[in-house]
């Protein structure tokens, strides 16, 4: 039975967070810029989450509360936005994030084989991060490139026409590249 749990990084509920104590000046400035483009501050929620994730790789509970404080919106509403999108990470992820497409066309084009290979090569299951904190493996519902299936998304870039060698090649580069997520 698959188990879905609400994100529980911090067991102690955070009641009130002053955004200035959590977010950097850069982040605040970028979020304020987004706010200026919308009629209501809450509308900048998605952008704010993306900005914070760009700076910190993922959105922690503390960051979530801080953004809600900055946007003057109920935190549960922002949580609704954050958990709706699979590209907003509410749990820590590795330096690189792989989203392997598991939709119908990719399934027909060897998804199970590729998935098994990826998992074996990285030594992790879907939803996990390698022990060295380098790579997180996730699935994705349709990347919109059925004509070039099977496909995955690596750090926001599309990798198409996957086969075993191209995956090995990609993972090899990842380990060689190392360092920051660029």
């Amino acid at each position, binding site marked *: *039975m698959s188990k879905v749990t609400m994100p529980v990084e911090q067991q102690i509920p955070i009641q009130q967070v002053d955004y200035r104590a959590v977010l950097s000046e850069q982040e605040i400035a970028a979020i304020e810029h987004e706010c200026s483009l919308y009629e209501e501050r809450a509308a900048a929620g998605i952008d704010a989450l993306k900005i914070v994730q760009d700076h910190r790789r993922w959105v922690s509970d503390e960051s979530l509360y801080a953004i809600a404080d900055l946007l003057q919106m109920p935190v*549960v509403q922002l949580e609704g936005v954050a958990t709706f*999108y699979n590209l907003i990470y509410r749990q820590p992820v590795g330096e690189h994030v792989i989203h392997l497409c598991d939709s119908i066309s990719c399934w027909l084009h060897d998804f199970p084989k590729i998935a098994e290979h990826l998992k074996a090569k990285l030594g992790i299951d879907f939803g996990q991060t390698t022990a060295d904190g380098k790579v997180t493996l996730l699935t994705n519902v349709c990347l919109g490139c059925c004509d070039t299936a099977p496909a995955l998304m690596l750090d926001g870039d599309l990798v198409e026409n996957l086969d075993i060698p191209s995956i090995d090649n990609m993972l090899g580069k990842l380990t060689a590249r190392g360092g920051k997520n660029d």
Partner: protein
Amino acid sequence: MANIIIDNQQYEVADGQNLLQACLSLKKDLPYFCWHPAMGSVGACRQCAMTQYHDENDTRGRLIVACMTPVTDGMRVSMEQPQETEFREQVIDALMTHHPHDCPVCAEGGECHLQDMTVMTGHYKRGFKGKKTTFQNQQLGPLIKHEMNRCITCYRCERFYKDYAGGTDLAAQSSRNKVYFGRQCDGTLESEFAGNLVEVCPTGVFTDKPFGDHYSRKWDMQAAPSVCQHCSTGCNVTLSERYGSVRRVTNRFNDHLNGYFLCDRGRFGFDFVNSEQRQQHISLGGQSVNWSDAEVQQRLKAKGTWVGIGSSQASLEDNFALQLLVGAENFCVADDPQSEHLLELHMAILQQWPQASLAQMEQADAIVIIGEDINNSAPRIGLAIRQALLNNAKQQVKNVGVPEWQDSAVRQVLPHNKVPLAVVGYQQGALAEQATIRLVADDKQTAEQAFLLANLLCEKSPKPRVSKVHSQIEEIAEVLKTAKRPLIVGGWSANNSAVLSAVANICKALANPQGMLCIAPPAANTVGLGLLMQAGYLANEAVESKLKSEECNLLVLDHTSDSRQQWLQTLSKQTNNVVCLQQLAQGENNSLSLPISSFSECSGSQLNYQGLIQSYSPASKPAGQCRPAWQWLVDLGKLQNIAELASVEHLGQLHLMMSKLFPTLAEHFTELSGRQFAMQSPRYSGRTAMLANQTVHEPKPFSEAGAPYKQSMEGLLPGQNDQHPLAYSWSPGWNSNQSNHKFRDEFRGPELKSQQGIFAVPNHPECFWFKWQASWSANTKANYKILAVEEVFGSDSLAEFAGAIQQLSKSAYVVVLPKVASSLNIEAGQWVTLDDHPTLFAVKISDHVPAKSILLYSPAHEAAISDGCDEIKVASKQKISALHKRQQAQQDVQSQQKQLHKQRLLDQDQHIPIQFIEGAM
């Protein structure tokens, strides 16, 4: 009207509604989930699918969702063809992919809308082969239990909680088959309307926690139509009973008052009737005694004048019997001179101005709240006002041809189409934060500015001493001049006669026949006392001197407020003979106390804020020696040879006597001739077995003389007589509260039907100006003026006897201005003391505090504090640690009591008080 054809049958239905409303109003069984009569349509669940045909030659048609389709003249639809019935069955199949088959252990089972709809669509076999998702449930506080696995994602909870009631801590989260409804993290739901989730949720995701602790199936409970006791709105409720104890309160639909929703104080506060502190025996100075004891008899027959003190928490009948017994000249109606004055004034205003019902208030296009904390004094009215804020947005969508029940369209345009809401005064809270015009002022300034507002609207309106008009008041005047249906809200919160007078003056100055007024009195039957007051009364200030000057006996009707207890302590020094009629044992002095039935155990009537008379019926039988107060008073009348009262044998005779004095009431007190309503459902189980451990005889069903309800399963079913309210709502195939539509039209139409019922306070069309009185201009000499504020949980002394409400009650706090806080060097959350008052107050800081004032909240059962204070000091460490210890101890006691309470109720189930069942033993 529109002619529509459903399954080749022609029907005439009202324009402006959607197809689902039309079908339900035609009493057709069309399944639905996400649509709610009070919340409009969003088309989220697709359950009400039908087929629409182009014309009579079109045989294929196209699937439509009934709740999103307006009825149009000549439209052809079908509801029973295979394509839509199969589709509806598949929708249920899809909605139920994660639904566990745990109906036998689910509190919703037997009154579950999902069960009903599943049976109605004919779905019986699970098609989905995948695994079910298991969610983690949240702890949502003492009122609501969360069981997320049962969710079918209809979005009703979020739409009620966030959109309808303005809650900010529950929302939909995640996506696809992991959609989750809950808070960001565990914690008590903040909204005082959270309890409605129990009824809004079509299945068992949100269930009633206190009810779950002492549970019974809906079909096994005896239900009685009743009226809420926890504020002056007079919301209609249903009480459900099993094995002699009241299990829960649910909403009883009333189109002009509560509609489909209650507040949590009303839903969970009833539990005081099961409180351990309920007095069950006659007691003298704390010792149990008998009626026939010489000392008791001597006390009851004592010579000298009997002074009666009425109660706004007791029924009209009880107060009337007391007034008869002691005579109007010895009947006191208030605990202090100020409330007496307010009551007099209130009645004078009520005679001049009819009060708007909640449904009428929902139609307002401008709202001005003058010095009233309506959110806390009458939460359900606050919720109605919140709905009025949508009216401009509704009009806006109508202007572009979108019907107003298209809820998401309305909410889309809401930010640009706000209804003006002006708040004058010092009240805090959600409604004040929504204000488009807000003037923070203390009670005196509020009254002055409100008098000036009336003067701006009409030059003839008297002016106060000051003449400086705030810019906000000018703005409000402009809003009121242009509004079509303005609503003025006032009340007793500020405890200030000038505020009340000002509100009446604004109404007169407005001179708008569509204008509406609402003045909220503090208790369920305050207006009832006001009515009796018209037959004469003893002034509050005269009570003490009367007790001093002559030999007097005191006869007191139950009231749980702290001010009442304090006053009684003072009075008991003046007389040796105090007789209390009380339901909850309070105070310990040398008084004789007679145990009385609660509202759940006897019939009675009360007048709501409008002066509308409403009656409640008993759901259970009184335990121990409890009897209705009026019966004790009749017995006293016999002892004291008060001929008029002594002749009363049943409530009907008392009603006749009341009708003579107040002829308007006569029509309300008509008795039922013929068959009575059954209070037990036809499936009530164990009727002949439930008393088997005590007697083999089946007792005769109990019913009061002339009452339309019978504590039996034999009698009329819901809907078989529309003269009297339903005992419970049920219809074949519709076991949940959604069965409501079988008994009335779900579509109200553009014009409200006029409110049914008898308004006890006669209206005098001629009205006069209230003049500014010199005494109102006095200022307090203290450094800080204390302005009392209320809380939904904590300020109602009666509900504090309900365990769940007690758990939610806040401890005392003060709200100060930021500059006061910085000058005193105190921070939010710190504990302070005021002068030499023993209570510790938590500090809150807000900009919305009037200058030179502090706002103060103190729980109902803690000593009240005077009007002003000179010094705010940070509390000493010892005091704080003592407080923490006390709070910890209190919490321990509360959780212990909760367990004991539960155990006691379960034990009690084994010993039903059969001696009170007619014909038993």
